[in-house]
């Protein structure tokens, strides 16, 4: 498979990158590690006129201790980040999610920002142009209705970032730099809750920083997958316990991580938190395991994870 023709640009700073985006009148994409973008371009899901490579913008690649916050450059490689002492010392949930991301060779290519901004996935969507034309376009491709749930007017694609649920449990914030402004928001506010367009991003905006409160935490990450590596999560659970408060995030069963706070992770509190998530999620048959099974595993995965984390703290 070959991509459609595009121009390739390597700006040296964020301002130049945004300027290039405007120069191509929005028909450009930003390239980070490329492990999500390049397959999408090969499948014809993206046909940009220009690819703007962010990898040469040095400040986007660094990790910095800012006192109250750890600032993570979104272009930091997953593989490098999982070996970073700050991450290991303060954010075990994030460290575990980095370790669980794909496989080491892809971790060396993929970046944390790219992992956060990966597009939502569906077996009926992540297919070649030939396939999609044969089947008829779905909602996410601009068609009339969903192909995974025929007739549905809602998109059910899954947001499969491993690192986003972990960062949500750590109350991470993000910085977005666009043509008009630089804004900072909670990571959870990034999501639209609509799978066909999962991110609330303005045209041309670049994820320029991830900020995580520098507080010691205990935590962990578990993912359901068929194989021991490479696979995207079919369900994921992240949990962090910081300053006497626990946060659980459930991923890969909808367009965003579902985040619930709990005071003390008692048996009942875990049950209530899971109940909150179960009321919001509607997994469908758009990935490789049965949707009812994936839903059934939410309390199992969450319960095991939280108990493991709390046991480990004793």
């Amino acid at each position, binding site marked *: *498979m*070959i991509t459609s023709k595009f121009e390739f640009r390597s700006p040296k700073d964020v301002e130049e990158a945004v300027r290039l985006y405007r120069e191509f009148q929005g028909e450009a994409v930003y390239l980070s590690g490329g492990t999500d973008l390049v397959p999408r371009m090969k499948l014809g899901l993206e046909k940009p006129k220009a690819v703007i490579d962010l990898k040469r913008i040095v400040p986007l690649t660094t990790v910095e201790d800012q006192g109250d916050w750890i600032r993570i450059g979104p272009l930091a490689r997953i593989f490098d980040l999982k070996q970073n002492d700050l991450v290991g010392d303060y954010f075990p949930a994030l460290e575990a999610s980095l370790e669980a991301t794909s*496989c080491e060779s892809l971790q060396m290519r993929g970046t944390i920002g790219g992992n956060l901004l990966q597009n939502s996935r569906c*077996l*009926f969507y992540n*297919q*070649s142009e*030939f*396939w999609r*034309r*044969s*089947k008829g376009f779905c909602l996410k491709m601009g068609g009339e209705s969903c*192909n995974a749930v025929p007739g549905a007017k809602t998109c059910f694609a899954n947001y499969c970032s491993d690192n986003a649920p972990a960062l949500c449990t750590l109350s991470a914030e993000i910085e977005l730099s666009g043509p008009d402004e630089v804004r900072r928001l909670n990571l959870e506010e990034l999501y639209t809750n609509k799978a066909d367009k999962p991110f609330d991003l303005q045209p041309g905006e670049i994820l320029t920083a991830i900020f995580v409160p520098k507080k010691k935490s205990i935590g962990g990450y578990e993912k*359901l997958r*068929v*194989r*021991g*590596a*490479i*696979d*995207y999560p079919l369900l994921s659970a992240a949990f962090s316990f910081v300053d006497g408060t626990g946060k659980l995030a459930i991923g890969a069963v909808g367009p965003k991580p579902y985040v619930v706070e709990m005071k003390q992770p008692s048996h009942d509190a875990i049950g209530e938190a899971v109940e909150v998530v179960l009321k919001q999620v509607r997994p469908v048959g758009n*990935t*490789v*395991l*049965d949707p*009812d*099974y994936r839903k*059934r*595993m939410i309390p*199992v995965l969450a319960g095991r994870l939280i108990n493991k984390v709390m046991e480990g703290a004793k």
Partner: protein
Amino acid sequence: MDREYTIVGTRMTRTDSLAKVTGSASFTADLKLPRMLCAKVLRSPHPHAKILNIDTSRALRLPGVKAVVTAADAHGVKWGVFKYTQDHPMIAVDRVRYVGEDVAGVAAADEETALEALDLIQVDYEPLPAVFNPEDAMKKDAPLIHEEYANNINVHVHIEVGEVDEAFGQAHLVREDTFHAAGEAYSTLEPYATVASYANGYLDLWMPNAAPHVRAKALSNLLKMPLNKVRVRRINVGGHFGSRSEVSPGDLVTSLLSMKAGCPVKLVLTREENAACTRQVHDIQATIKTGVKKDGTITAKEFRVVYDGGAYSSTGPIAASIPYYVYEEAYRFPNVRYNGYRVITNKGIRGMYGAHGRAFLCGNEMQLDMIARELGMDPMEIRLKNGLKVGEETATKSVIISGGLEEPIRRAAEQANWTEKRAGLTEGEGIGMGCVAVMCGFPMGFRSGSACYVKLNDDGQATIVTGICDTGMGNESMAIQIASEVLGIPVEDISLVNADTVVTNLDPGAYSQAASFVGGNAVKRACEDAKRQILGFAATKMNHPAEDLDIRDRTIISKTDPSKSMPMRWIVREAFFQGKPIAATGAYMPKVDFQREWIKKPYGQMAGTFSFGCSVAEVTVDKETGQIRIPHFVAAHDCGNPINTMAVEGQIEGSVQQAGVAVLTEETRWTEGLLLNPDLLEYKVPLACDMPEIEPLIVCSNDPEGPFGAKEGGLTTRMNAYSAVVCAAHNALGVPLNEFPLTPDRVLKALDAAKGGDKS
């Protein structure tokens, strides 16, 4: 084993390994010929439709396009392995029957132009009702996909031996179960590719293939060209597993394009095309009924097996028979009725698989465990009781000449501590055993045999010329090793010329496990003939009886008088002097019943010999998540005698991955004729981190017919590894498992179903 041989049986680094691990080995997609064009194929977007019109004129006008072909350029010859299954035109004529079917081909100066040209070909279709599963396809009102197959039944294999109903009537215990296994993808690392080069009336071809002579004959028929003008040439092949056995639509398209353009043309399929548009593995549903005596002796078997055949016949009756045969080759049952139906559906084309018959084989094996449990027997004991022994006949009259099931079972059980482990299992742990026997070669008429030529060169080195084909398992290295052993010269003194239809003689190819048993035998015989000639000249030259002479390390030696020796090259040169250069021929035809036919007469000797195997898997099952892990796996394989011990072990280990672990992960998923996982991300081939600790065990039955006692190098493991895992999971869970692969959702469903009723 005592060291009977110099090089046979050693752990030799395969002759092809260095090139492959360093990336210097060339495969079809790597070939570059002067003026070569790039081919692309226009494929059907419909699972079933009439073709009303094809207009290629706009594509032809596109600069850079050198040729466009459609069925109008072909000769109306349809492909099918047998005369009665010739139904596949390879380029659709007036109807398409699956998504991805070849409709037209384009050859252009580069890939982008070829792709652009595809968009310019206008095809008018009239969509037809389609059917996607065999049970629906067999219904009376189902759309008929081929006029000639009533109820869409492509082939019906019926085997009947003994008095089946009477035997069931007298049985102490009868059990009937139904099993279903999703189809699988071969997932060869090398995507399919063809290079065709037509010049001066001759067509040269390179493609991943398992039998160049069979491929050339098929193409000569399809192209209506004399066989001597269609030359299939040797090339490295990156995996086969059954997928490269038959001629591919891409071969025909590329050949026609090269003939039309007058240039070499290369077609390389994408990963998606490789999965959706080349043959893949049948979905199978098997209903198995077994009757036993009180002591566990199997007295009767009855089978109804339905194979989802996809849109065309392909290997038809073979695919619909092999699961049964590899079962009857392992176990004794005097009364049997087998009904195998291969049914046409509007899905991609299906073919043979190295691990063919998952639902059938592990269904049988798990059911045997259920029966053993009801009878209070150890699963090993019931297998030992019913396993075939040397001298016995299978139900359809094949004699077992070596091996038998007992030795592999005992060896595997001993290595795995079967009895102790079974006694000490804790919650969620299980141990299971899978057995099978596999034919080495089967009747293919005069193409069942192999012939080899040998010539000795002036420095005492040898060239061997054989049709043996290597699709990645090490057959080339095997042939060289056999020649080295016989001729008494090191491996590096041997040049191999193989798998080239103009140069080499007939060979059945790298399927039906014939390469070492049949092809290797021909190499051995040719080299023995050459050796006889050498020793004849040596006897005169050395004035010593030929019977007392031998060749060791490039030297003629006396077996009894160490003072007598002479460099072999002197003898070879002497032969040249006398105008009688050393040139020899050897051939081997397996002793099979050539009257045997897959449908009309499924009785008689199926193969020259059979290999036997037993796998033992240990599993742990998480009953809350349904996830299965395989910590330990023992595979005992009776290969007769290993030519290369390390290569056989490698085959066993690969087989554990492709079957034993794949039974937890691999399945093709569909949505109305479209493959949902035509890639290696969502089609779950097990990874290194998913693999168990493997102990391969080589059992040596020293086959009386095989070269140096050899049979085949590992297929029993590929066919029984998943039975072992399924039986182990059944052992751990104690509930029937009827749906494969054993993904965690299916495991929980089985547990839920058992809570509602049937506890086995």
